[in-house]
């Protein structure tokens, strides 16, 4: 009997290669699926009296303002709502580290690693692709590198993590079950610029 495999959320959707209007163009958009991330949601209980400013996870503070992300080479801590954060890392033992840093009497700690489809889009036109479907204001320098925002893309709830602007690079998180639909929404929007699936 064939052994069961762990399939990534975009296993049947993400295609490698060149697509759209890519001929004779340099600096094409690059779209990839980010796999094997540990994604842990923590939410402070209302009854908890812990001071957020004193909490550190993997030497990172929990941001207390909207859009803010605290980060180091391995881990990113994203503000997703009042007293709610997403901690995202390539580290497999992230959950253990979190349990060492905070108590489950103070925070609801939920592993949602398997419930998100994660896309990375990078290139000079990455922001233009996002502007096509998301109502976030990408102008006026309000949404900057190392910011994040929960928003929508063509009606699909997503989380945008703005990684870099040299060139533009974003990680996009959608619910796993919306992953395929979201992937095709992003790739359709990318066709006019041409993109490379990597």
């Amino acid at each position: 009997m064939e052994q069961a495999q762990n399939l990534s959320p975009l296993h049947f959707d993400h295609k490698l290669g060149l697509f759209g209007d890519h001929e004779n163009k340099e600096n094409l958009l690059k779209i990839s699926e980010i796999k094997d991330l540990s994604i842990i949601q923590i939410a402070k209980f209302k009854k908890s009296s812990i001071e957020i400013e004193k909490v550190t996870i993997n030497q990172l503070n929990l941001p207390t303002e909207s859009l803010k992300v605290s980060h180091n080479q391995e881990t990113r801590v994203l503000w997703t709502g009042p007293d709610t954060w997403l901690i995202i890392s390539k580290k497999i033992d992230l959950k253990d580290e979190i349990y060492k840093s905070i108590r489950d009497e103070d925070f609801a700690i939920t592993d949602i690693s398997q419930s998100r489809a994660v896309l990375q889009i990078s290139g000079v036109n990455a922001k233009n692709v996002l502007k096509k479907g998301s109502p976030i204001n990408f102008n006026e320098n309000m949404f900057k590198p190392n910011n994040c925002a929960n928003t929508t893309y063509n009606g699909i709830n997503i989380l945008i993590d703005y990684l870099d602007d040299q060139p533009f690079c974003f990680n996009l998180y959608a619910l796993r079950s919306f992953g395929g639909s979201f992937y095709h929404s992003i790739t359709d929007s990318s066709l006019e610029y041409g993109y490379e699936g990597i």
Partner: protein
Amino acid sequence: MLEIKCPYCGKRSQNEFSYGGDATIKRPQLGEEISTEDWDNFVYYRDNPRGKHSELWHHVSGCRQWFKVSRDTATHEIFDTCKMNEDFNV
């Protein structure tokens, strides 16, 4: 398209929000004797004012918080928004 200022996230497009009804409706106290008419009024009957109106909105695609909005139902002008435990300034 409205631009609504979430008290937690700042100004965002109406696409990210969901309307939640009249913010002035109070649920009858638990354990009190309530007449059928009062329950009817609480559950079903709403005013439909033209002009300034206090509303509940949910930032459903953002921080997922409920908050209050003071809005003109005729012009859609938004006068103020505030957290559930706060009062409007305007």
